[in-house]
């Protein structure tokens, strides 16, 4: 199901590919697929609606930057809006601090507390934890066991039912420790007495950070719960747990939106090392069930800065060896041709097969051959007489046949370009260029 979702998004993107102007229907379709993807990822429905509205408006109203195709333009807007949704990436400072953990029952606070202790320990800080969960049986044993495995002191008393007192004493006992993490009992927004308890603990501990732990599978409830927690103790960071399952963690985005904070860590496994810093790009890919969106956007942006390729000259029919050289260079920088081609908007345009049947080894060879040409030859390939071909071959360590092959390839490309120009104007020259250039 998830793969299918990614595919339909990709298809929607592909539909934009052949277009020269932003097509309302295509954008609508893309936005609809995007909505489906995000809603299935448990992002708050209202957020999704606001996001898709923004994407739609911007795609249709903003003029695509020069040299950027419609598809890349829209893609970039989608990416930017998604990043905005992520909020700021929460900073973790490596210094003395008190961290208060908050969250719903069963969201993974205790496990995450131990993982965090491990994280700070590995950064060379002295860490201690306080077990403030006086309700759940076995909570202290769980935290104590996890901490003793990594030799982190754990303060708590399973027989004491007063969490406030435990926290007060714990802070005293751990005075002089750089990082103190306070684990608390799971609670939800409707339990007024427990919310009061965590407000008190926050006041007592004067916590530097108050982090909300969110289960990746949490659905639309996330907004509401996060809002209440935020009202109570001013949450300044979100940790997503259980990302090793199939849940997408969209609920955390709702929490981020409510608390105006950012996602700090991601818990993705059952061992104590399974805590990762948050990576927005990986997260977006997961949300949408498609490949690395940023990589695509970056490639698109790179291709704009590749403005050295003189599009106008080409429009006038001037496609020289020098232009081809630049394209080959660009392709080389961006990885295997086939992979890039697969990400490209192919539209409905047919190219001579040999244009991209070229292997990367051959491409490298071509570049070497062209390195042996003079500037004049690169600009005016018709200069290349048999003796010049001979010279170039010797200079490049190639055979004259290979040089001729290169020239043949060049002519094919040139003809293809001419053909496009001669067409009924249904092709976009820039897109064509990028296509040859690998982007």
């Amino acid at each position, binding site marked *: 199901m998830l793969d299918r979702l990614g595919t339909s998004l990709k298809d929607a993107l592909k539909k934009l590919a052949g277009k020269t102007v932003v097509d309302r229907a295509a954008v609508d379709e893309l936005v609809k697929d995007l909505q489906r993807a995000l809603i299935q990822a448990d992002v708050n429905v*209202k957020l999704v609606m606001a996001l898709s509205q923004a994407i739609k408006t911007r795609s249709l109203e903003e003029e695509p930057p020069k040299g950027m195709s419609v598809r890349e333009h829209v893609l970039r807007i989608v990416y930017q809006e998604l990043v905005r949704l992520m909020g700021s990436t929460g900073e973790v400072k490596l210094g003395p601090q008190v961290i208060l953990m908050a969250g719903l*029952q*069963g969201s993974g606070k205790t496990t995450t507390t131990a993982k965090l202790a491990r994280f700070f320990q590995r950064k060379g800080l002295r860490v201690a934890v306080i077990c403030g969960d006086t309700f759940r049986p076995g909570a*202290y044993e769980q935290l104590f066991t*996890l901490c003793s495995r990594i030799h982190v002191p754990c303060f708590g008393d399973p027989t004491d039912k007063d969490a406030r007192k435990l926290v007060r004493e714990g802070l005293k006992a751990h005075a002089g420790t750089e990082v103190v993490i306070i684990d608390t009992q799971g609670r939800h927004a409707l339990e007024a007495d427990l919310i009061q308890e965590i407000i008190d603990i926050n006041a007592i501990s004067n916590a530097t950070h108050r982090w909300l732990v969110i289960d990746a599978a*949490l659905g*639309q409830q996330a907004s509401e719960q996060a809002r209440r927690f935020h009202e109570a103790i001013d949450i300044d960071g979100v940790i997503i*747990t259980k990302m090793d399952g199939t849940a*997408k963690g969209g609920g955390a985005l709702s929490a981020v939106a409510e608390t105006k904070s950012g996602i700090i860590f991601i818990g993705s496994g059952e061992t104590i090392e399974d805590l990762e810093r948050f990576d927005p790009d990986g997260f977006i890919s997961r949300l949408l069930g498609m490949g690395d969106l940023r990589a695509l956007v970056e490639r698109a942006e790179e291709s704009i800065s590749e403005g050295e390729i003189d599009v106008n000259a080409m429009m006038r029919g001037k496609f020289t060896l020098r232009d081809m050289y630049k394209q080959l260079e660009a392709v080389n920088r961006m990885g295997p041709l086939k992979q890039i081609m697969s990400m490209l908007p192919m539209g409905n345009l047919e190219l001579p097969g040999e244009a991209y049947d070229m292997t990367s080894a051959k491409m490298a060879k071509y570049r070497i051959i062209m390195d042996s040409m003079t500037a004049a030859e690169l600009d005016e390939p018709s200069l290349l007489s048999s003796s010049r071909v001979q010279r170039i071959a010797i200079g490049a360590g190639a055979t004259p046949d290979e040089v001729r092959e290169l020239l043949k390839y060049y002519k094919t490309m040139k003809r293809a370009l001419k053909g496009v120009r001669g067409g009924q104007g249904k092709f976009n020259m820039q897109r064509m260029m990028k296509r040859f250039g690998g982007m």
Partner: protein
Amino acid sequence: MFEGLRSRLQKIQGRLEENIETASAGAEPASSPRGPAPAEKGPGMMDRVKVLVTDREFFISEDDVSEPLFELEMVLLESDVALPVTEEIISLVRQNLTGQRRKIGESVDGIVFSALRDALMQVLGDGFDLPAYIRGHDRPVKILFTGVNGTGKTTTVAKIASFLKKNGFSVVIGAGDTFRAGAIEQIDEHARRLGIKIIQHQHGADPSAVLFDAVQYASAHNVDVVLADTAGRFHNRANLMNQLDKIRRVMKPDLIVYVDEAVAGNDAVVRAHEFEKSVGADAVILTKADMDSRGGAAISIAHTIGKPLMFLGVGQGYDDIMPFEPAAVIGELFGGSKENA
């Protein structure tokens, strides 16, 4: 639970009715015998007019309901009903509504109600009466609890133990979560408080062995019910799922109960499906229903695996568990608004 969904549903019903009313109001002039005007509007109108004049009925068209249905869709999505399930419900309601003929003067909400109610009934299915099930089977009745991490399996086992004890059954608990730190201590403490026998091994032991022992104990001591707790596991961990399968082979449970939380979003559908596929599930328990008054996960899970919802966990106390009765819930869901209508 479900109150949120209910109040939203009522709003939508209002909208649906409004739209259908306006549609009928617009068509009304046509019912007068000397009104030829509507007939000219197009061939599509002919049928409508004919039905209207001869049978004094009119069609509900798709356009009349599309906007409120979109709103209904949003409501379901916001209530955590998973997307595929939502779409199915909407298409059911749409099918039930459009193309229907309605007698002029017939109550509108009747049509809307039955369409929504039928759709939800179809999804929620029947409940599950655990005490009756236990009475009807050979002792000991072995119940295995499965689910992903942190959904509340251990707490639920304690609650069910307490529930069954109150219903006059003898119970033994098998501490099958030998993985998570503190899990054995947790269930041990619950059992101590409830005065229930517990079979446990040390941390890291083979859960199949623990649960086998629990079953042996129950047979030897004529205990009515074995409740087998297990470690939380994700459905995409093949080895852990294989372990669960081994547990199933070894203890041969009569009932496999899948535990998930009411606040879970779309993933609820994915994992319920995977658990059902790999180890099976006979009934579902939804926990943390007190956090959420919407109940969408109940609808999604029930719809996905087609297994009855047995209990709802509604709090942290041992008594905070209630049997789930779909008919009552649906009655409640629509009950309030009937008075308004």
